[in-house]
């Protein structure tokens, strides 16, 4: 195993994922990658491109077409000392995995009082906005956020994709790693292939601000940062927080910001009701009530299914919707 040279050129978010997978496959022989079409095809999004050629079919496994199977095999391998990194081909195909994730992955350690564990990662291209067919555009993170024993992680930049995926694979417990597919190739960043993981369980403050706290994750980080720019142009100083690890939630980072700004706008793509934004708003209502100058705002998908692509952009949060919410909050003082 020879060390990789530092990547010289900037890479996309999805390339950062491939890079992290390759790094960890090289450095930990208990890591295997499995999923539909992850082998010679390199994944339908090319996240595993080249890995089969590099690591062989015993490390990069194409599975039969069944998500229950993928989840079950993954838990079986993880509980016997391997570190499987499974892929669900799209967000909308994760549901058959829920049983194994909730009943076994999330509980193996607790059930056996630590005797068996389940160090696995489930990667899944997540969310809408790529003009894909039905079931290829879902923001369903909240299926897992009320399940103890899991980590739900979502990167929003090439660097965080790399660092958080390394951390997820090395984590001793199951991690649902949701990849915002809309920004897979949106921009490039220098991501040194140095094997440095980024911490899980912490929120990342991406922009400092004084007037309003914008809390978001995944693909909406882009629109939220743009909204912050726009607000700045109008003299409103917005702090932007990328939650990054939804559960376990690092609420103190959010609380600190809200204490400072007195206003909290939560932005996410999933439907509003009982989306994960609710948890953040609830914590604010519990722990930051007297800091609040304005009601909490949620800018989210509507409480309906994301439409097929002719209408989908009207479903998703947008820069304008975020700006409007921030301004509504600013109306209070």
């Amino acid at each position, binding site marked *: 195993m020879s060390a990789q040279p530092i990547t010289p050129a900037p890479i996309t978010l999805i390339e950062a994922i491939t890079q992290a997978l390759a790094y960890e496959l090289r450095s930990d022989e208990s890591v295997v990658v499995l999923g539909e079409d992850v082998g010679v095809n*390199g994944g339908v999004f090319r996240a595993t491109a080249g890995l089969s050629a590099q690591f062989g079919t015993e490390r990069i496994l194409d599975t*039969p077409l069944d998500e*229950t199977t993928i989840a079950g095999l993954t838990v079986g391998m993880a509980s016997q000392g391997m570190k499987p990194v499974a892929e669900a081909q799209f967000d909308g195909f994760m549901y058959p995995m829920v049983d194994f994730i909730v009943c076994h992955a999330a509980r193996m350690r607790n059930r056996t009082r630590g005797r068996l564990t389940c160090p696995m990662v489930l990667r899944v291209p997540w969310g809408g906005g790529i003009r894909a*067919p039905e079931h290829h555009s879902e923001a369903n993170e909240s299926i897992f956020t009320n399940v103890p024993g899991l980590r739900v992680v979502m990167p929003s930049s090439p660097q965080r994709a790399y660092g958080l995926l390394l951390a997820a694979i090395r984590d001793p417990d199951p991690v649902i790693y949701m990849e915002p597919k809309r920004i897979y190739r949106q921009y490039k960043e220098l991501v040194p292939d140095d094997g440095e993981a980024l911490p899980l369980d912490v929120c990342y403050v991406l922009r400092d601000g004084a007037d309003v706290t914008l809390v978001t994750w995944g693909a909406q980080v882009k629109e939220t940062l743009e909204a912050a720019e726009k607000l700045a142009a109008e003299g409103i100083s917005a702090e932007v927080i990328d939650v990054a690890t939804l559960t376990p939630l690092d609420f103190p980072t959010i609380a600190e910001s809200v204490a400072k700004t007195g206003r909290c706008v939560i932005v996410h793509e999933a439907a*509003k009701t009982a989306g994960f934004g609710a948890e953040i708003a609830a914590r604010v209502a519990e722990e930051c009530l007297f800091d609040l100058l304005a009601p909490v705002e949620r800018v989210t998908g509507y409480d309906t299914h994301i439409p097929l692509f002719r209408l989908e952009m009207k479903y998703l949060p947008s820069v304008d919707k975020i700006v409007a919410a921030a301004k509504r909050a600013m109306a209070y003082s």
Partner: protein
Amino acid sequence: MTTAASFEIEYLQYLKPDGTLAGPLPPAVADAAALLPPAVADAAALLPLFKQMLFLRTFDSKAIALQRTGKLGTYAACLGHEATHVGIGASMQPEDVFAPSYREYGAQFARGMRPREVLMYWGGDERGNLLTGAPAHDYPWCVPISTQMLMASGAALSFKLRKQNRVAVAVCGDGGSSKTDFYAAVNSAGAYQLPLVLCVVNNGWAISVPRKAQTGAETLAQKGLAGGLHCLQVDGNDLVAVLEAMRRAHERARKGEGGSVIEFMTYRLHDHTTADDARRYRGEDEVKQAWLKEPFLRLRKFLTDAGLWDEAQEKAWIEESGKRVDVEINAYLETPVQPVEAMFDYLYGDMPADVLAQREAAIALEGRA
């Protein structure tokens, strides 16, 4: 040794790839009609289906072209599957229920679906699922692989409970036969002895995963044994065999003899969808070989030999097909986008207050249609 159980699975083929009849008599001396199975009244009965197959080719290539020019979303071609799809559709009665996956346009057209709706669906518009020309009880496209198989089992159960003389027909791929929902369909159809026909279209590939990587079973047909269903393997490029296999399965179903699993052996001649590039994972040779066995050539040869088809007819029909498809394409392109409230209007039968409020907010934001 005591035997607990034993099984045999039949293979059905009538038309060989070269267009001659497979059968006990040498094709040269055989009376074609005598060798045709009960499903086919006479050779002429094949003609309209042959024309449907040809129409499909035209539709398919025009849809792909539409996608390439950005006027359609991802599209799943049916190239090579025409005999299987058309045969399945032709075997059904209007009161039967059809549960497709996502590329059985041949069957859907046979059910009466309008081509523009195929384009609407892949064009990102839910109205493609209205099936204005097809039986209103047919299922919409089904993206989560093989869930349609189990749903169809539920439909068949409803027929049985209500003593309706109807059959549910569902289609999945070779990959789809690995899905737990497929097995659940097999299991429940056997447990309740349901009027269900589970069609496994084995086209060799599930995106990049070859058939042999899906299962250790020698045939996909034998998966039916797991539930005590009738199992059959068929040359899916042979329209005659497809029709006969479906006839048998329908007959069983209507007689209350339970469900069938039919494996149709065919080949996916195109990429998985327009979003796929099959050159990454399969060799040209395999594809070339498959072109020699595709369903269209043999049937054309057979019908031409029978004096039922000629080049002039073909030219005229292709032209006619092209025109019909163009009409559909235009209708699709001219259909205005749904208003923003459409995303709320079909969610519940009784719209909850919160949804109504969001609907109003969305209209306020986006403008009333």
